């Protein structure tokens, strides 16, 4: 609380007290119209009358003077009370504490001691006057008669006690005032800190809000106008422009502007090298200290009615992405606090620009990859076509010669031509498998899913593999539960999976061995086991078995007509259906290929099964 308010409160209280005393004086006089009641009345009147002008002056800014007068008045009134209530022996002397406390509250820290000393002097004065019988009426009014020699001792003790109390009171008042002012300072400090925190908070929120706006943009073309406008509003500057580095032209290009700057003005600033003044660091207010060119630039803009140039370099990870340039005019002076708030925002903006650049580069790379992928697919399609034509002659002529159209063949000729035909077909299978795999990898293979009945599918596939199994006297058996639900699959692709696995099983199984197909439902899927009693797969081979061109014994398998792509394609097809495939095997005992297919929610159409691509 300020001295003025404190004083005015004290004086108001005193005026009220004076009025109350006055009323009490009148009441007392009605009961006892003696001399004392008149004195009380007069004192109350004086007290009241003296405080009213205090109130007036204290409100006009004479706090010091009013305080001194008030202390003086109180001292005088107490002294009068002392004189009129028995002089040195009067209990009213205790009221000297009053002006001392007032002084300690309202005046300089040393004044209570002066006031205390002064009160002491007055008291001694009263004593001296009383001794000299100067205060005639005082001695006659009150006080018992004391033996002459007792008197100085009593007064001495009183004076000492009085001075001690006055001193302690003054010290107490001082301490009160001091702790009060310390409290006030602490309060002010806290308020200052709170204000600071509020400002920081506000800054953070505005940074967050703004940066959220920044990251919503995917192109510099849309980001920069909004960013420039937002930052302009934040700083209360209405004129400015944004330059962004363009990788293609290797130059800074105008990306946005606010206010009434013309292209010509902006070009002039750019020609003067505005980009070179600050390429990194915090926002910067240009001054003549930046060099003669800048000093010249400042003079130039002054002619256009502007007073300051504020440069905000946009830098992220040592890369200069662009520059914001604000021009202030007249009243638009920017406070340093605002300018420093701009720092983090400009960093955010630079990061947003960097992200945009990354995204664009990613999109470019993606497009390149897509194009390469297309080229690869086109190449595969062309290669497939170009290989097929000569292969047609190889297979066609071999076929014709073997059919006997060109005359009888001897045993060796038949054997050789059959070998040409078989190898031609092997080459064809290889082309088909590579084409399949390329299609799957390019994501071009679309599944035509429908409910597929396992039993019907097996009935379609088994006749194809049975002749080969019969050649090796291999027994094929199937174990399907009677109520096995249909699976959700592309029938042709599912048949391809089954065919691949069965062909493999027969291929690697010795004569008189057996191959089985089992199915059982498992957690929304059907688990299908294709088990053989073949050569088995060693643990280290299991890890690579689904990779391309992996065959356990290529020399042995080549004679069987495998391409080394069958299992890779099978795995891709199972994955495409959302299933999984794995191998359980024991070397020399046999293998089980276990794969899962999702169960269909609809009943199977029996006609759909058995299709082969």
């Amino acid at each position, binding site marked *: 609380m300020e001295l003025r308010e404190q004083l005015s409160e004290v004086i108001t209280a005193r005026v009220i007290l004076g009025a109350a005393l006055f009323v009490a004086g009148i009441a007392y006089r009605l009961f006892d119209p003696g001399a004392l009641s008149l004195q009380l009345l007069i004192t109350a009147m004086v007290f009241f009358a003296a405080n009213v002008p205090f109130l007036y002056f204290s409100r006009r800014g004479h706090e010091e003077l009013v305080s001194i007068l008030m202390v003086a008045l109180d001292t005088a009134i107490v002294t009068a009370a002392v004189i009129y209530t028995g002089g040195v022996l009067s209990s009213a002397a205790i009221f000297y504490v009053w002006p001392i406390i007032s002084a300690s509250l309202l005046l300089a820290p040393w004044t209570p001691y002066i006031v205390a000393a002064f009160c002491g002097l007055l008291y001694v004065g009263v004593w001296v006057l009383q001794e000299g019988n100067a205060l005639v009426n005082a001695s006659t009014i009150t006080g018992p008669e004391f033996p002459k020699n007792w008197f100085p001792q009593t007064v001495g003790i009183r004076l000492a006690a009085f001075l001690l109390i006055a001193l302690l009171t003054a010290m107490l008042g001082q301490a009160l005032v001091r702790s009060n002012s310390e409290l006030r300072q602490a309060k002010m400090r806290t308020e200052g800190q709170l204000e600071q925190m509020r400002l920081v908070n506000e800054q953070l929120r505005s940074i967050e809000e703004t940066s959220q706006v920044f990251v919503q943009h995917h192109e510099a073309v849309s980001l920069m106008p909004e960013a420039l406008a937002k930052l302009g509003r934040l700083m209360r500057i209405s004129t400015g422009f944004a330059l962004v580095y363009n990788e293609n032209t290797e130059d800074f290009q105008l990306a946005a502007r606010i206010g009434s700057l013309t292209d010509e003005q902006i070009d002039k600033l750019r020609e003067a090298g505005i980009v070179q003044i600050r390429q990194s660091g915090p926002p910067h207010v240009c001054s003549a200290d930046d060099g003669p060119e800048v000093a010249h630039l400042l003079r130039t803009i002054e002619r256009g009615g502007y007073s300051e140039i504020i440069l905000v370099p946009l830098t992220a990870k040592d890369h200069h992405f662009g520059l914001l340039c604000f021009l202030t005019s007249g009243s638009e002076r920017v406070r340093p606090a605002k300018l420093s708030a701009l720092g983090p925002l400009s960093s955010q903006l630079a990061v947003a620009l960097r992200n945009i650049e990354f995204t664009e580069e990613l999109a470019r790379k993606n497009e390149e990859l897509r194009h390469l992928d297309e080229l690869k697919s086109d190449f595969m*399609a062309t290669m*497939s*076509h*170009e290989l*097929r*034509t000569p*292969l*047609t*002659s*190889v*297979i*066609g*002529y071999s*076929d*014709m010669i073997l*059919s006997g*159209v060109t005359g009888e063949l001897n045993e060796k000729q038949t054997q050789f031509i059959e070998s040409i035909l078989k190898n*031609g077909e092997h080459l*064809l299978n290889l082309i*088909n498998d590579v*084409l399949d795999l390329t299609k799957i990898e390019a994501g071009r293979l679309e599944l035509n899913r429908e409910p597929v009945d396992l039993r019907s599918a097996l009935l379609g596939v088994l006749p194809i593999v049975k002749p080969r199994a019969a050649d090796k006297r291999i027994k094929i058996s199937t174990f399907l539960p009677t109520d096995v639900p249909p699976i959700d699959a592309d029938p042709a692709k599912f048949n391809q999976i089954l065919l691949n696995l069965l062909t493999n099983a027969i291929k690697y199984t010795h004569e008189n061995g057996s191959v089985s197909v089992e199915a059982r439902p498992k957690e929304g899927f059907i688990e299908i086991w294709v088990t053989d009693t073949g050569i088995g797969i060693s643990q280290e081979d299991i890890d690579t078995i689904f990779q391309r061109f992996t065959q356990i014994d290529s020399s042995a398998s080549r004679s069987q007509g495998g391409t080394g792509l069958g299992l890779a394609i099978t795995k891709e097809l199972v994955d495409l259906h959302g299933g999984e495939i794995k191998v359980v095997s024991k070397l020399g005992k046999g293998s089980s290929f276990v794969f899962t297919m999702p169960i269909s929610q609809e009943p199977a159409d029996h006609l759909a099964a058995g299709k082969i691509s």
Partner: protein
Amino acid sequence: MAKTIVVADDDPDILSIVSMSLETQGYTVHKATNGREAVDLTKQYRPDLIIMDMMMPIMSGYEAVQELKADDGTKSIPIVGLSAKAMATDMERATDVGIDGYITKPFRIAQVLSVIEGYL
């Protein structure tokens, strides 16, 4: 009377394989080396079936099929495509222009014979 078949292919080897195989089976064969010749031979001989390569010079198989299927006199003659174009999209394209059957190269002679018997 022997059935008549027009065979069109720009590759002389394939043309000879197909025509020889068919002749051995007792069919009468007329050989064309491009789509234009195939159309002309078809209009001249009114064959019972046409075996058509799709990629040929002067006039492609697609164009030839379109022309023959647009002509009331020839549109009922079944046409079997014989092509090294093995992608699903290639077959779709052939079906779209009105082809009746499709065999991808390379082929086995037995396969060709069984397919054409289905249309005769």
